[in-house]
C-alpha cells in the first residue's frame, strides 16, 4: 500500500510546522448583532501531530477549523499550511490550495448521492481534472480498502451504513495525499461501534503513515488518546497540552 506522500514522517511529530495560525480573529453576524467568535488565536501544528481541539459548544471550534481549512476568511490574522499563506488568496485559488493541501472530514459524511463510493473518493482528483488514470483509481480502491470497504467501490452512499459512509468520507479526504487532515466531529453522528472504528482509522493513519491530523471533538476519548489537546474557550486557546505516548 502506497503511503501518503506528504505529511509522512513516521509516527511522532517532526520539527516542520504544517499549520501556522497567527492572531486569528473572526466575527460572525453583522452590525449590532456581530460577535467576536475567535479572539486572536495563535497556534502551530507540526508534521505528524495528532491534535484534538476541544471546548464547549459555542467556543469557536468549528469556526476555527473552517478558517484553518481555508473554507472561511478571518477578519484578522493569517493562516499558512505547508508554507502556503492562505490569506488574501482568491476563492478559486483557495479552492485549489484546499484541494492540494487539506483533507476535510465533516460531522456528516456529505457524500454525493449520485456517485459510487469510489467516485466519491476520487472526487477531489476530479476537481483537478484527474482521477481517470488506472493508478489513481487503484489508489482510490486502496484507500477504500484501508478504511475497511474493499469490494464496496461500486456501492452508492444510500447502500452503505452511516459508519461506512463516514469511512468513505475519510478515504475521500486522503485521496489527494493532504499535508493536513482536518476533521469536524467525525464521529458525532455515529454509534459507539462505528465511532470507535473511525477513531481507529485516524489513529492508524497517524501512527502508520504519519498523517498530520487536527480533530474537533466533544468526545473525551478522542482527546485522551491524542498527542496534543488544544482547549478553546470563548474564542481563545486556553490550554495546549501535549500527551507524549498517548494511545
Amino acid at each position, binding site marked *: 500500500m502506497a503511503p501518503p506522500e506528504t505529511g509522512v514522517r513516521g509516527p511522532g511529530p517532526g520539527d516542520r510546522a504544517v499549520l501556522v495560525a497567527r492572531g486569528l480573529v473572526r466575527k460572525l453576524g453583522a452590525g449590532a448583532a456581530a460577535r467576536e467568535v475567535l479572539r486572536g488565536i495563535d497556534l502551530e501544528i507540526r508534521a505528524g501531530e495528532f491534535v484534538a481541539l476541544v471546548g464547549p459548544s459555542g467556543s469557536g471550534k468549528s469556526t476555527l477549523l*473552517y478558517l484553518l481549512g481555508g*473554507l472561511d476568511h478571518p477578519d484578522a490574522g493569517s493562516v499558512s499550511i505547508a508554507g502556503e499563506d492562505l490569506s488574501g488568496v482568491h476563492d478559486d485559488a483557495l*479552492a485549489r490550495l484546499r484541494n492540494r493541501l487539506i483533507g476535510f472530514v465533516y460531522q456528516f459524511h456529505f457524500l*454525493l448521492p449520485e456517485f459510487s463510493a469510489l467516485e466519491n473518493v476520487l472526487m*477531489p482528483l476530479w476537481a483537478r481534472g484527474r482521477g481517470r488514470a488506472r493508478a489513481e483509481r487503484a489508489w482510490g480502491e486502496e484507500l477504500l480498502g484501508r478504511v475497511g470497504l474493499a469490494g464496496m467501490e461500486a456501492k452508492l452512499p444510500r447502500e452503505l451504513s452511516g459508519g461506512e459512509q463516514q469511512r468513505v468520507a475519510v478515504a475521500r479526504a486522503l485521496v489527494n495525499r493532504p499535508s493536513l487532515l482536518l476533521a469536524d466531529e467525525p464521529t458525532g453522528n455515529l454509534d459507539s461501534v462505528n465511532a470507535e472504528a473511525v477513531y481507529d482509522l485516524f489513529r492508524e493513519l497517524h501512527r502508520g503513515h504519519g498523517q498530520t491530523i487536527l480533530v474537533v471533538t466533544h468526545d473525551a476519548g478522542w482527546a485522551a488518546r491524542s498527542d496534543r489537546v488544544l482547549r478553546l474557550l470563548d474564542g481563545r486557546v486556553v490550554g495546549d497540552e501535549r500527551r507524549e505516548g498517548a494511545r
Partner: protein
Amino acid sequence: MREVLLLAWRHLAARPRQSWLAVAGVALGVAVFVFTVSMMDGLTVFFTQRLIRVSPLLTVLPERIDVDRARDALRRVPGDAVLALSRPPVPDDRPTVRGATAQLARLRAVPGVEGASVAADVPAVLSFGTIAEPATLVGVDPRAEAGVTELPGVVVRGRWDALEARREGAVVGVQLAGRLGVEVGDRVVAVGEGGAARELEVVGVIATGLGATDESTAFVNLPVAQGLAGWGPDEGSEIRLRASRVDRLDGLRRRVEAVTGHRVETWEETSRASLRLFRMIGVTTYLLTGFVLVVAGLGIANKLTTIILDKEKDIAILRSLGFSRAALRGVFIVEGVALGAAGALLGCAAAAGVIAYFTAFPIRFAPREGAVLAYTELYLAKDPRYYLVIGVAALAISALAALLAVRRAVRVVPVEVLRGAA
C-alpha cells in the same frame, strides 16, 4: 471537462421525471413553432403560387414615368432656372395605355419577356334576371392572355377557348357566378359606367382561389370591355407580361419601363397589401409561438434552479473539495444545454412527423365567402432551415436559462452551507 459532463449527467439522471418534463416543455415549444412556421409559410407559398399562376408577373400601367420625371426635374431645378421650362406637361387624365398594339410588338421583342397581353379593366354591373352585382370586366385577348397567365387552367366549368369563338362571351368568377345564379350558357347583361350595355353569354366559370378575382371578376373579349368603357381599340388599362425568370424581375422591369415609358409593377407590388397582410399574420404568429419557447426556457431555468437549491449542500462540498466556480458553472450550463438539445431534437422529430402526416393526409376545408384566398387545404411548407433556426433558438434560450439559474450556484459560500448543514 469529462468530470463536468459526468456531474451534469448524474444530476439529470437522478431526477428522470423532472428532466423529462423539462425536455418535453422544450420539445413541445419547438414542435409547435416548427409546425406553425411551416403552416404560415405554406399559406404564403400557397397564396404566392396561386397569385403567380393567375396574375401577370409584370404589369405595364397607364402612368407615364417620363412625365413624372419631367415633373420631378421641374421641382428640382432651383431659382431662375424654373423659367427654362415654359409650361409643364399636361397630365393625361385618361387612365389607359395608348398605342397598345405597337407597345405589345415592342415588348415581345424585349429579352426576358415570354408573353404579353393587353387588358382593359372596366367597372360594370352584371345582371341576370332580377339579380344585379357590381363586377370588374377584364377585357383580354384570350389567346394572348393564355401566354401570360394560367387562367385557362383554372376554368372549372365551360372552356376558356370559348371566349375566342364567342365574341360576346364571358368567363365569370366562381363566387360571382354563384351570387348571380348563372351557369355556362346563361346570358347576362353588362352595363358600363357610361350606361352602355352588352348582353354576354357565360362560356365559362373560373376559380382562381383569389377572393378578389373569384368574387367580382368576369373575363370578356378586349373589344367588349373597350366598348363598354368608351375606349378606342388601341387602348387598355394595362399590359400584362410573363417573364422567363420570376426571380429576376427588377432588371426586366427597368428594361420594360425604358421601352414603354410607362410605370411597371411586379406581381409583388401589385399584391403588396395581401402580401403585407400575410407577413403581419406571420410575424404575429411567430411572436406568439415564440413565447412557447420562452416558457419552455423558463421551465429549464426552473428545473435547474430546483436542482441548484436541492444541491446547494453538494455544491458547497464540491467547492470545499477544490472545484472551481467555472467548473460548477459548467456543470449547470451543460445540464441546461443538454435539456435544450434533447428537447430541440425531440421537438424537431415530432414536428417532422406531424408535417409528414398532414402532408400524406391533408386536412381539407370548404372555402369561406369573402376570404382573400380560397384556402381549401392545409398546405405545409418544408424547409430544413426551420428545424435549424428554431432548434438553435431553443438551445440558445436553454443556455440563457441555465446562465440565469447558475448564478446562484456559483454564489454558494461553502462555509455558510456546511455550517448550516452540520
